[in-house]
């Protein structure tokens, strides 16, 4: 399916999940091997196998909404449910 779209979903308090024909490269253009169809990328910053998620967000109690955040006073329109960033 060459025209399959790539979808990235930030999960609440968890990683980014990427589905679709995506290529990961480091900043020098080197390939970062992707060995599964659905990939979880670290969103808490504390994974020990970045850029991939390794579940460490549980240990550091990472909190983040799934939808786009809009800082107070920021003009950005969103369908935010009001929960916003809840970092502990």
């Amino acid at each position: 399916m060459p025209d399959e779209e790539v979808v990235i979903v930030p999960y609440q308090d968890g990683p980014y999940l990427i589905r679709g024909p995506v290529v990961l490269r480091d900043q020098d253009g080197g390939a970062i091997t992707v060995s599964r169809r659905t990939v979880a990328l670290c969103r808490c910053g504390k994974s020990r196998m970045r850029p991939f998620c390794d579940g460490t967000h549980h240990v550091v109690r990472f909190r983040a909404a799934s939808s786009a955040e809009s800082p107070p006073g920021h003009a950005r329109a969103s369908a935010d449910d009001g929960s916003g960033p809840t970092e502990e």
Partner: protein
Amino acid sequence: MTSLQTPGTRRRIALPPVRGPWTEALYNLLAAPAPAPARADAGAGAAQPAVPLGDVEHLPYDDDLQMALYLCYELHYSAIDGVDERMEWSPLVLMFRAVLEEEFERAVRAVVPAPEPTPTSVGAELQRLVREDQGPPLSRRVETQANQEQVREHVIHRSAYQLKEADPHSWAIPRLTGAPKSALVEIQSDEYGGGRPARMHAALFAKTMRGLGLDPTYGAYLDLLPGITLATVNLMSMFGLHRRLRGALAGHLAIFEMTSSVPNRRYGNALRRLGYGPEVTDFYDEHVEADAVHESIAAWDLGDGLARIEPDLAPDVIFGAQALLALEAAWAQHLLDAWDSDHTSLMRPLF
């Protein structure tokens, strides 16, 4: 040692020795000719031994009852030496199983916390349960202190599930629809190697067992497993085989995946500390990465998604999650208590 190459092997187990009245009654049933369909009610009363069931809170630890229930479920997973394969659907065996299941479910419901009012977000509630879980620190203990024998014991306990990893949850696939079904299949596809038999998680576990000098034959160590270990697997088989409990199965899988990555990294570290290489740690290393993907899918697309489609199942999703945490905690405590007192955590020493 039996080879377990990637083409797969025929599953067949042997009945372990009788442990007490429940296994004895089951074996008597299994030895009888398969009943004719129209005779379902004949002799059903004889299926139950006349023994008291004991304290409900003890039932998850009952070595005999849990083995009988485990073997009832094995009829659905495996051939059993000397047992007619039609026994899988013998009404008498199913009626016997139903007695055990009723007691087991009652016992599990007795040990989980009282249900909260139905949460507005099942996914967020699953995350809260994981955040606030105070389970025994088994994976830390194994990572930093376990010796060779304890690591092997740990693997033997887990073989009750890992050699058929993912199978209990697959029962739910035809019982779900839409996004939750798609989520479950996405996870299961990964569990079964994504089209690569050698990457099936059960095959990776067999490789770990071989590397540790253990027999990876399905069921090889069944007789060594105590009731609490069997109960952790019976829980998922019970949830999986009852459509009524599909919500609980979804919650079970969600928590299973959400509490997997970090402990599995520690178990891999334990094996590295003891000098084992990638062949042996592959199973654990794979789970760190795979379950980091699965946990979000299981919590949100499966658990939360199912509760959105069938809101009346929300309490069951949470129940399944709490049940897993409760039984896993009891199992982990059993291992720690045994090791603290220099005893084997198995029914008898491995050697």
